[in-house]
Each structure stands twice: as C-alpha cells, then as structure tokens.
C-alpha cells in the first residue's frame, strides 16, 4: 500500500470518526427533540459513510478484487436512516412535543404540550 493511499484512508477514517462524534455530541447538546434528530441521522450517516469508503478501498487494494459489500451496507444505511428519522419526527408531532423545550430535564407530566384537539 502506497503512503498516499494510507494517508487517504487515515483521513477518511478520521473524518468518519469526527462525524460520528459530532453526531453523538449533537444528540446530547441540542435543545429539543426536533433539533436532536439531526445529530444521529445526518452526521452519523456521513460518519459511517466515510468509514465504509475507507473499508472498501482498503479491502479492494489488499484483498482479492473489488470489495463491494460496503456499497450495499451504505445503501441500506441511506434508505433506513431517513425512514427512522421520519417516523420519529412523525411520532413527536403526533404526541405534540413542544419546540425548544428540553424534555430530559423535566418530569413527563410537566411538559407543556401542543394543544390536542380530541374529536
């Protein structure tokens, strides 16, 4: 493996790790439920994507032939991550979670709700 590829791989892995870390940090630090959704879904997708790219390149060079498993994995990831984010957001809307309100600091019954119109 040439030094250039090694540097490239290292950069990819580091970038992946950085994105993953930022995503996790966002999950903890963001104010309310809706903003927090950004953390895991966007940043983590990018992070794992970088790691997968690194893996694909590494095994394609050292192994026998092209390693394409990673493409399938990222395909799965790119399909499923938006769905789960969508479902989570939908649930939050259905439950009427308020904007800009940190629920972890409060007891469940104290959360102000968005008004629910019961038919």
């Amino acid at each position, binding site marked *: 493996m040439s030094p250039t590829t090694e540097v490239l791989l290292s950069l990819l892995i580091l970038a992946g790790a950085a994105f993953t870390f930022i995503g996790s940090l966002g999950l903890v630090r963001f104010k309310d439920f809706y903003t927090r959704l950004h953390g895991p879904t966007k940043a983590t997708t990018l992070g794992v994507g970088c790691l997968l790219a690194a893996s694909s390149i590494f095994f394609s060079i050292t192994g026998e032939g092209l390693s394409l498993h990673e493409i*399938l994995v990222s395909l799965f990831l790119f399909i499923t991550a938006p769905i789960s984010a*969508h479902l989570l957001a939908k649930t939050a809307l259905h439950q009427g979670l308020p904007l800009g309100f940190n629920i972890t600091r409060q007891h469940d019954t104290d959360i102000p709700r968005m008004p629910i119109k*019961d038919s």
Partner: protein
Amino acid sequence: MSRWRDEKASIFGDNSEMNLFLAVLMPFLGAVLVALASRRGRAFAAWCTGGVALLSLFLLLPAMAASFDGTTTIQRLTWIPAAGLDLAFRLDGLGLLFALLILGIGLLVILYAHYYLSAEDSLGRLYAYLLLFMGSMLGVVLSENLIQLLIFWELTSLSSFLLIAYWRKREAARRGARLALTITGAGGLALLAGFLLLGEMVGSYDLSVVLASGDIIRAHPLYVPTLVLILLGAFTKSAQFPFHFWLPHAMAAPTPVSAYLHSATMVKAGVFLLARLFPALSGTPEWTWLVGGVGVATLLVGAVVALFKHDLKGLLAYSTISHLGLITALFGIGTPLAAVAGVFHIINHAIFKAGLFMAAGIIDHECGTRDMRRINGMWHYMPHTAVLAMVASAAMAGVPLLNGFLSKEMFFAEAHAAAADWRVGIFLPAAVTVAGIFAVAYSLRFIHDVFFNGEPIDLPKTPHEPPRWMKVPVEIIVVLCVLVGIFPAQTVEPLLAVAASAVLQGPLPEHNLALWHGFNPALWMSVIALIGGVLLYLGRKPLFVLHDRLSGRLDARAIYEHGLRTIIDFARRVLMRLEAIGLQHQAAVLILAALILGSAGMLGAASPLTGSRSLLPVDGVSLLAVLTLIGATLAVTVLHRQRLTALIIVGAVGLIVALAFIKFSAPDLALTQLSVEVVTIVLLLLALYFLPPETPAESSKSRRWRDGTLAVLAGGGAAALAWAVLTRPANSIAGWFLDNSVTGGGGTNVVNVILVDFRGFDTFGEITVLAIAALGIFALLENLRLIAPRRDVAGRRWDSDVHPLIMATFARLLLPLALLVSVFIFVRGHNLPGGGFIAGLITAIALIMQYLANGVTWTHARLPAHTHPWIAAGLVIALLTGVASWLFGRPFLTSAFGHPSLPLIGELPLASAMAFDLGVYLVVVGATLLILINLGMAHSVSHEDEHAKEGPWKP
C-alpha cells in the same frame, strides 16, 4: 426346526427376499391408500382393502410354503446396531398359523363390512383403521425381536382403540375404547418390563435365542418377576380374569370390528404370546399355577356370565372370554399335548367365533336391536342365516361333528390327565365340566332365544334375509367348521402340526385327531356337558331371577372406575397444591433447591475454584463493553416495571452479547444473535401492545429482599461455575471438528458443518421441534381476539396514519436487497459465517418488515397467507436429503460435496448438506412468520375495529 434361513439385507440391497418386511409394511401403506381411495366409492375402497390383504398374503407365500417343511425363515434389517436392535422378522409354524388367521379372517371381515356399514358411515375410515390393525397384528406374530414385537403390540392397542371408537359420536364407543386402551396399554408397559428382564437374562432380544435358553431363564433368580410381568401383558390383552371387563365394553364397536378383534386377532395376541414363549417360560410350578389358575377362573367366570347376558354381542363377548380362558388353561397345564390342544382351539375358536359375530351382526343389522328378550322367532324371517348361526353356535357348544367338539374333548382329556399332577383331585375336571355345561347352555340360549321362542317383540325394523354377499363370509366359515369337524386329519392336521411344533420348539407328541377315541373320561365329560347344558337351559328361569337379584354387586368395571377416579383426584390435589403457590414461588423454590445442591457440591469439593490456566490481559474496549453490559442488566432490573424502556435496554444487552461473540471469534453466533434479537424485539413489541405500559409495584419489601438475595446468590453461583470452568485447561472435542471439517464435511465453516453434517441428525430433530412449536403457537393464536388499549398512556388516541407512505415505499425497496443478503449468507454458509438458520431469520425479518410497513392486507395479497406449507416443505427436503444418502449405501444424512466451477460466478462450493440447510432455512422462515404474523393479526383486528368505530383521528 430342522433348518434355518437367516438372511441379512439392506433396504435397497439386491436381496429380494425381504418379503416378510414388505408383507408387514403393506397394510400400513394400504391404510393410507384406502383412506384416499374411499372417495371413489365404497366398492372401490373394499376392493382396494381386499387387494392389500391379498398382496400381503401373496408376499408371505414363499416363506409359508417353506415353513411347512419345518423351516424357520428369519429376515433382518439393521436398525440401531449400537443398541443391538434390528428389524427382524420370523416366520415359523406359529407365525404361519396366525398370519393365515389374520389375513384370511381379515379378508372375510372386509367383505362383510362392506355390507354391514350404513351409507352414512365412512367405509374408508373403517378400512384404513382395519388395515392399520392388520399390519400391527402381522407385526406381532412375525416379529423375531422382542422389542419390535412390543412396538407392534402397542400398535395393536392403539389401532384397536381407533376401531372400537369408530362411532366416535357415541359415548359408549368412546368409553369402551378408552377402557380397552387403558387396560391393554398398562399391560403393554408390564410386558415391556418383562421383555427387558428377559433380554438381560439371555443377553439378546432375539426370539431364537430366548426360545433356546429356557433352562437359563427358569433357573434365573428373576424368573418369577419376569414371568408375572409378561403374563400381565398377555392376560390384559387376552381379557383374562380379573382384567376381562374391557372386552364386553369393546362391543360398542361395529360388529365387523368385533368379529375381527375378538375372534382371530386382538385378544388372540395374548394367547399367541403364551404360545410363543411357551418353551422359554413354561414347565415350572409358578407357570402352571398362574397360567392354569387364571385360565380356569376365566373359563368359569366367562361361561357363567355369558348365560345371563341379554345383549346378543354381550353373550358372545363373555363366551369369548371363557374360550380364551380355556386356551390359557391348556397352556397352563403345560404338557406338550395340552399345548397342541391349545393351538387347535385357537384355530377353532377363531373360526366359529368370527362366524357367530357376523351372524349376530346380520341379526342386529336386520332387527335394529341386539336385545335377545325382543328378538325371537327369527327362524321364520331368515332361515338361511338361522342355519348358519346354529351350526356355528353348535361348534361353540362342542357338539360332535363340528370343529369345537374336537378341541374341547382334547381339553377335557388334558384336564383329566392333569388332575393327578396338580394334586387338586376332582376339582379341575369338575370345574371344566361345569364350564362345559354353561357353554352348552349359553349356546342353546343363543339359538333358542333368537330363532325360536315365539314371535319378535316390538322390533324397530321388519327383519328379512340380508344381501346375498353378506352371508358369504359366514357360509365359508360354517363350511370350515363342518370340514374340520368331520375330516380333521385331512384338513387341519398339517397346519396344526407345524404350528404346534413351532410352539414346542421340539418333537410333536403323539396325538390323534379323530372323532372317536372310544369310551374314555373325556367323552363322558362331553356327554355330561351336553346333557347338563340342556337341563340347565330348561331350568334357567329361577337362575335368571337369582342373577337379577345379585347383579350390580360385583362389577369389575365399577371397581376399576373407582380406582381410576381416586388416582385422578389424588393427582389433581397434588397439582393444585403445587400450582397454588404461584409461578414466582415455584421459581424461587427451584432456584433455592439448585443453590443448595450446587453449593453443597461446590463446598464439598477439595479442588480450588480457580484453575491452572493463566488469565488473558484486560483491554479497554472489552472492559467498557462488560461494564455497559452490567449497567444495562442492572437497569433492566431497576426499570422492569416500565416495560418499553426495559425492552429497549434488553435490546442493548443483546447487541453487546453479539459484540462479545465477534470479539471471541464466533461470527456465526453473533449473526444469529443479531437476527434473533430483531425478531424477539418485534415479538415483544407486538405482545406489549396489549399490556399496560407500566406495572404497579406488587411485591412487598421483604419479598423483594428475599428474591434479590436469591438472585444474587444464584447468579454468583453460576458466575463462579463459569469462572471455575474457564480457568481450567479444556479438553474438548472442538479439535476433532476443526481437523475433520474440510475432509469430512467439505466446508471450512466448522459451525455450519457441525450443524448440517456432523450433528445433522440433532439439527433435524431441532427443526422438527421448531415446526411443532410453531404449529402449537399457531393453534393457540388462531382465533385469539385480544382487546387492545384505545389510547396510549397519556390518553392520546393512536395515529390514524398506520402505514406512513415513506416507510411503506422504502420498505418495498428494501425487500429485494434484504433477500439478496439472505441468499448471500445462505450460499456462503458452508465455508464462511452464515448458513440456513441465519439466512432464514434474515428472510423472515425482511418479510415481517413488509407486514409492519404495508399492513397485513397489502402483504397478504402478495404473499401466501399461511406458511405451514413452507414448514412442511422444509422438513420434507431435510428428510429427503438424509434419506438420499441411503441410495448410495451410506448412513442417514451423510453429505457429499464438490466444487464445480460455473461461468461468470466462479467456483461454487456445493455440498449435499446445502439441501439440508435449505430445509432448515424454510422451516425457520415458515415458523418465524407463522408466529409473528398470527400475533400481529390479533393486533390488526383489534386495531381495525377501533378505527371502524371511531373514525380517523384528526389532530
């Protein structure tokens, strides 16, 4: 006895002389065939059934012919060589006699049943049961191996249960069948114990060995228990006193069944066993007293009770008991000549009793009742049937010129001769003569009450002669009765000679089958019996009055039912006590017991807890994972009342365990763990939907302390055990598998090779269990309608958008990808982590995704609604793969492998184990879907109801 033919063969070997095996197998196969064929009409079913019986007979012919010159044919198939168990069949004179009776009378019964059963009753079902029974009976009489004999013996109990309960809507039929099964089944257990003891004594379960080791057996200290156990089996089957009471209740069966079971087969199995083991067990005082005593008691009880039965079949039932007692008594006397007489009476009784039952069936069929107080004067309505019944009945009474007379006179002669040896003086001949008097009296009653004695009283039907062919079987039988009775030496003698010499396993004693033996004691006893019987019948009125006054005082069945009730009540009380303490307490008791026993063992051991193996260094990642695992486990315990939260943490525990598997080089386990985790979470979510999200605290503080302490101690004990085992150097069989995986199984993935090859038989058992479990769960869930909560915990209604569009669309997109992965995992399974089990779970998850995302209606329109066929197909494929190796002369489930190279794809590792793995795959997919979908269906039904009632929810 002069020559032996012992043949060894494999199923698919070139040896064509496997006729005994095929002859026994044929009725079992035929039963399936007939059950299917009966849709094409009754006559067709009858022809098929008769054809099967004839085919069996045809297959037996070569061995039958050989047995006439004293050859014993033995054919064996290796079955479980490690347990010394072969499928071994034997045909000698005794087997020949019984096979002829079973098949011959079976054929007559098949013809008779065709006309007997009414159009509403399923003839195919009766014929199928009848063939099952025929096969079982043939198995009993043709078995060389004792254990195999016992298996067929139990099969006769089971199939006779089906036959007796044929009219399953009638309570009497069900009760009678249950009674017969309980008594004969219990006897079968005793017989098994007896056979095991016998096998221990002589060191083999082969009849040839057992029969030749009579001296060893009789001298053995365990002879008496063995004898008693075996006799229990024989006596229960042959309805000997005091186990006789099941037989009259078995009369609830259709008459063709009674004619078959109680003449030539079922009850004859018991006396067959006495005859079969005669050389091995007889010749001791214990044998004489037990067998002879029980026989004479049964003879007397049966004969006396028979006279007082008003039910036509009841009379015949007790007379059957009495005649079986007679045969038993003959074997009990134990002299060679008595054994000959016993065999002779087996033949005669089978013939005339089959005819009598058939005649009784005709009368019942034509009159609509069996009550002899109402059936009178039938002579005018059906003279032809009357003549047939009278001849058969006279044979039963022992009237000269008929077959019953000959064997009965031999019996009288033996009883007279034995009186001196038994030191019972006049008792034995007297008892036998009294039984003879009663036999004449009840035979006379059968004739006089039914065919004469005035006019019929209030019959449901107007009787007339039955269809022509219904009488043919009876005619054949009556002709046999007369032929044997007049020309015994020309007709029955050769058969009797080979059968009797097979019973004795030695030279045949001098006997003379003739009508006239001169004026000897036996003749006088016959004369007394005949005259006494007529006198007894003439003076019957006061006896009937006496009987009516006494009846009901001593009913064996009442005693039996009382005993049964006591046992069931006792079991129920014990169970109530145990169950009343509740599941948690039961678990606590169990764990406490394990704890006490375990610590007693551990503290008592001298060796240290920590073994000699050096420990591996701890790395940071592992430590972190372990700490997380511990934390998650604690969190589940603390938060277990919030079910959803607890479930999520359980999921986390599963993930960490999967990581641990990867860390310790078990990728197969990790993959399995991951997929099982997903399925479990879906399953639990479906279940949790019906439960409140939080459980209130129900346990008291002290109870929580107690349970906590128990849990900590038991868990600590398990951890200590694991520690002790893991710190010791292990000598496992893993090395062998690692060395032989490629050479023996053709795969580098040892885990998979173990599953589908080395331990393939275990896997086969496991998928079978899985299939059964899935079907069981399906049965429980099928009509389950649960009431789901209408609102969530905060009082909100559920979202009306049950299947969000984005989710539905992308889930469809995911399906081909997921299936691709599943195929990939499946194909590479033999060499790399994967395999049928994991692939099956992945497919199941992919399909369940469709149900979750698109709903049951959408998915059901595209997938088969039931996955039972998948399970069945999987089991069949796995089984066929296993069986296929027989074709190549290898043991079950031996795998073949190769590495063919295909264009474009490259080298493809192929092993026959892959087909087996496909079976595993199908069973896993089918079972998982069956369970989850049906649980989800209960769910969706409750959900739809709600929407239908309240309309969609709008925020």
